[in-house]
């Protein structure tokens, strides 16, 4: 489709609005209320352009470009005098009440309002009256509120309420005194509130954790990173100054997180700066525990050559580190650091996805699904961004149907909203307990895992009769299955989501069966399984036995040295079993970044890098391998990536030191050879020696300040910049200034676009893929000749036992996370550990709400917990908060005794 802009002809995509078309063509047009993920409402009137009827029309008509669809041969002018004057006037209007406090504003230097003001050319204010002022609110420990800076673009409420489904932020009052905030002071309830800081075009909502150690965007050293706090693997930008991680920003990835992050991901970075970090290698048996690198190498070398070595991998360590450990100890001695139950589930998921019968779904594809079935996973709390994607699917399906009904483009947000009103797309949530996502669900049902699995199988059986053999389903169950099955049948792109958090393989099998049964003909069904940690999938794909097996082996064979990689075993394994393991080991060598219960057991402790001071690759639950890059230059401490420690030990052991520096690329190459399931993993990002015109990609913006002063207080003779040999990124401000390959974009910036909105300039089209394709490498391929995998294990329905309760974990969107809980702000929002049971179960126990209960499993006593009565938990099940700072590993999914 051709359009003419200022008498030049351009080709644009049909169906877009003029603003999107202009931005895609790299033309600068200011805007505020439009947001690529949220569409247009035409409220700010900032994006005005002149549109002409035909080439003879000299007068034209002023229109808001975000409200007009492109049409063939359309003539418009951005440079037109009236349009320019109007845009300048709009900024002047918005600026009448803006306090101009940029020097003290956190947004300064990354402010959309600053950019747009400069872009329109407004420089002289004619308004010389008093500005209106507001009282700010306390919005909790994550978000700071400074209402005076507001320019009333309505983006915050549109994001918070319409996009993220929150209801405690709203717009109040009217005329030139509208107020965006809560009804009264209080913590913002949505776990997606952090995005307000990026959605707000100016400094009304800002990152409160950044305030603790504020740095201007231009002063940050930034590197592409991947979130560590759940299995979704959102792309982030880690930002450093003065050796400290200062903040996390969203890194657009059109296939994964898009423009947003959850609060756990955005704010859970403080563990990197924690007091609790291990910075020094220790040999606990010596009087002087601190050891130099050569000492520790020698010591470890002697330990691992003395006896049999067992390696315990980690679902939160990178692929490189896990593989380096596998190489060091040998494939047969490498174990996953998780319980057998969890490992079994993870293996099952890998088997399902590797089969290639159903598509492994990305978040973007979930957003575009027209029906969603969730079985057995509380994704709101275990994978918040996936819940946000499901919400979009549900809301947008109705919207796109409405827009087809009467010809209204999908980006016309306000009109679509009016059309769709309360209509929703299909979502069924079949989970153990209620979740906030149930609010938008068409059907939600809460039952014990086995019953959920039975319903799943019943749906599969309804969709493809005859495939399931044992069909002794009750009438009520069949009725439910029919309702859900009928709705799924109508869909063109249904998605089935499940997860490992109810520790029941039948649930996952049932969900998979539904996906397979649906995947017929034209219908393209996708499947997703949420896992527990950021690299659970990567570890599972390595296909090693679980910790429980390691424990058995050591018990029978005895005498072994254990090397434990970035894993707090006590978080995964009941403490009695873990103690047993450590007692039977001769020596325990631990590599980790933070002190925890496991590092207490270490005789030798090696300081490992976190995601911020090391490189590595993670595989998310979709099977997408994604590379993260070091952002904190390490010049003084002994901290280094675990794989580097392990690789050094290996070269010492094998005497193969050849003087070459070791790169993650080399490890991935070795991994590809050793483990064929990781085929292609070397292409996950540009190699370490990648350059553009001989230049590396700078981690620092060209305005980076204080280069000769920043370290001057430590060393007057200015050390040379830290040399990063592991990646195509450099630790300086010099280097290639253009758009780097999508996987190694350290920050978003473009001339005139200093704020996060500059991401437009990195995309092929607005809201589309990054230039050169979205980063990440999908390891699971859809196979047309896939072996038809189908499970037939319909479990018996759940029977409430008299004195035994099924123990299941209950996660919290903000509080759960071994590492994120080190952020003080998140810790304050995290609940205290508790157990919840139905009133029926409580009566059976003769207990009441608030009593302290003790959970006992096969003689193992867990600490006592207060109990809460919860109507939505089914009888016979006890839910215990999991993943909190205080939480320890429990035998999830087993029947336990409970004592008062």
């Amino acid at each position, binding site marked *: 489709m051709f359009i003419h802009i200022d008498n030049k002809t351009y080709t644009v995509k049909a169906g877009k609005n003029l603003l999107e078309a202009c931005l895609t063509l790299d033309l600068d047009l200011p805007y505020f209320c439009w947001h690529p993920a949220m569409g247009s409402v035409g409220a700010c009137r900032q994006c005005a352009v002149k549109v002409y009827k035909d080439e003879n029309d000299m007068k034209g008509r002023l229109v808001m470009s975000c409200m007009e669809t492109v049409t063939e041969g359309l003539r418009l002018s951005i440079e037109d005098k009236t349009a320019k004057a109007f845009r300048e006037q709009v900024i002047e209007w918005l600026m009448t009440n803006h306090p101009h*406090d*940029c*020097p*003290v504003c956190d947004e*300064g*230097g990354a402010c959309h309002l600053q950019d747009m003001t400069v872009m329109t050319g407004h420089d002289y204010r004619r308004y010389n009256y008093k500005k209106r002022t507001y009282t700010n609110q306390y919005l909790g420990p994550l978000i700071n509120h400074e209402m005076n800076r507001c320019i009333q673009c309505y983006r915050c409420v549109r994001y918070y309420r319409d996009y993220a489904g929150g209801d405690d932020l709203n717009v109040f009052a009217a005329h030139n005194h509208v107020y965006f905030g809560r009804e009264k002071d209080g913590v913002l309830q949505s776990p997606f509130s952090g995005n307000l800081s990026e959605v707000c075009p100016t400094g009304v909502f800002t990152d409160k954790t950044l*305030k603790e*150690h*504020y*740095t*201007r965007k*231009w*002063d940050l050293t930034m590197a592409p990173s991947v979130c560590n706090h759940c299995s979704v693997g959102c792309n982030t930008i880690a930002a450093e100054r*003065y050796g400290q991680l200062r903040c996390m920003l969203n890194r657009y990835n059109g296939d994964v997180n898009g423009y947003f992050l959850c609060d756990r991901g955005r704010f859970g970075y403080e563990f990197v700066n924690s007091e609790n970090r291990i910075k020094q290698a220790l040999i606990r048996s010596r009087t002087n525990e601190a050891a130099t690198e050569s000492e520790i190498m020698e010591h470890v070398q002697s330990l691992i050559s003395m006896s049999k070595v067992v390696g315990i991998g980690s679902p939160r360590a990178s692929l490189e580190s896990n593989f380096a450990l596998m190489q060091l100890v040998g494939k047969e001695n490498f174990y996953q650091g998780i319980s057998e139950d969890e490992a079994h589930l993870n293996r099952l998921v890998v088997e399902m996805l590797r089969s290639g019968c159903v598509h492994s779904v990305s978040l973007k594809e979930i957003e575009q699904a027209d029906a969603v079935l969730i079985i057995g996973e509380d994704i709101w709390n275990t994978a918040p961004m996936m819940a946000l994607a499901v919400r979009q699917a549900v809301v947008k399906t109705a919207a796109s149907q409405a827009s087809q009904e009467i010809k209204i483009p999908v980006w016309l947000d306000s009109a679509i909203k009016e059309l769709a009103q309360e209509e929703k797309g299909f979502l069924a949530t079949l989970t153990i307990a209620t979740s906030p996502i149930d609010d938008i669900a068409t059907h939600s049902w809460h039952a014990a895992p086995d019953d959920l699995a039975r319903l799943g199988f019943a749906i599969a059986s309804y969709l493809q009769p005859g495939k399931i053999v044992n069909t002794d389903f009750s009438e009520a169950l069949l009725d439910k299955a029919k309702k859900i099955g009928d709705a799924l049948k109508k869909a063109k792109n249904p998605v089935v989501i499940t997860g490992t958090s109810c520790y029941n393989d039948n649930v996952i099998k049932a969900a998979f069966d539904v996906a397979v049964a649906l995947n017929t003909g034209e219908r393209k069904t996708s499947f997703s399984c949420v896992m527990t940690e950021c690299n659970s999938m990567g570890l599972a794909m390595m296909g090693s036995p679980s910790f429980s097996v390691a424990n058995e082996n050591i018990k029978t064979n005895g005498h072994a040295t254990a090397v434990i990689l970035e894993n707090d075993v006590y978080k995964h394994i009941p403490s009695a079993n873990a103690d047993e393991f450590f007692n039977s080991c001769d020596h325990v060598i631990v590599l980790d970044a933070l002190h925890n219960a496991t590092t207490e057991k270490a005789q030798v402790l090696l300081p490992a890098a976190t995601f911020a001071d090391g490189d590595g690759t993670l595989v998310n639950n979709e099977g997408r391998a994604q590379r993260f890059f070091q952002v904190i230059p390490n010049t003084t401490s002994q901290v280094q990536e675990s794989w580097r420690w392990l690789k050094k030990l290996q070269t010492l052991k094998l005497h193969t030191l050849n003087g070459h520096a070791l790169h993650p690329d080399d490890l991935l190459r070795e991994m590809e050879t050793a483990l064929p399931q990781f085929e292609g993993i070397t292409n996950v990002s540009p190699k370490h020696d990648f350059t553009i015109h001989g230049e590396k990609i700078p981690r620092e913006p060209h*305005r980076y*300040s*204080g*280069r*000769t*002063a*920043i370290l*001057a*207080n430590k060393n*007057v*003779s200015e050390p040379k910049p830290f040399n990063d040999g592991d990646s195509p990124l450099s630790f300086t401000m010099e280097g290639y200034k253009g758009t780097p390959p999508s996987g190694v974009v350290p920050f978003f910036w473009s001339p005139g676009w200093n704020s996060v909105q500059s991401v437009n300039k990195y995309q092929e089209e607005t809201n589309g893929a990054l230039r050169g394709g979205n980063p990440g490498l999908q390891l699971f391929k859809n196979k047309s000749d896939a072996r038809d995998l189908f499970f037939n294990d319909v479990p018996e329905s759940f029977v409430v036992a008299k004195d035994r309760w099924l123990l299941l974990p209950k996660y919290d969107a903000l509080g759960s996370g071994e590492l994120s809980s080190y952020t003080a702000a998140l810790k304050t929002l995290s609940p205290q550990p508790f157990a919840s049971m139905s009133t029926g179960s409580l009566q059976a126990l003769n207990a009441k709400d608030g009593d302290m209960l003790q959970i006992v499993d096969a003689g193992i006593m867990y600490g006592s917990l207060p109990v809460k009565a919860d109507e939505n938990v089914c009888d016979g099940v006890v839910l215990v908060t999991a993943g909190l700072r205080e939480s320890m590993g429990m035998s999830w999914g087993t029947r336990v005794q409970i004592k008062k």
Partner: protein
Amino acid sequence: MQSLTNRVKPVDRKPMTFLEKIYLWEIAKGMMITIKHFFKRKPTIKYPEQKREFSSVFRGLHILNRDEQGRERCTACGLCAVACPAEAITMEAAERKTGEEHLYREEKYAARYEINMLRCIFCGLCEEACPKDAIYLSQTFTPSNLTRAQFIYKKDDLLIPDPNKDPEQYAKALGDRKRPQ
């Protein structure tokens, strides 16, 4: 070789005469010039006892200014640092807490502010960039220190004395540049 310009001056290479060979006359000529200077005005002064008059826009060492109530003007916005062509300024911002209003003028202040005086070229761009009239190049100059590390000026070295507590030192540090406070 052909000359490239027409400004070539051919050198006269004829042999010296007897008078020129004995040099006496030339020595006398040189002595005359020397002796003439005994009677001229002295161009040097007895620094540091005596000091020269400076232009009112002389750019000396930096000061961090305070307002009339003695509060720090700097809000650690970072504009001086980003303007500095020598990249010699670095700072860390902190939030003003309640009860500190008498110390800091606005809600943010510089918890740390350092200038690497070994790198500074005294161009004054920091002064021009400052939106809060907080940093000035004063008329103090020639700092002397025993170690190089001492030339990394901290906030204590830069901050002007409080005009209310120590008006004399304040005026001295400010120099005779009439600045709005």
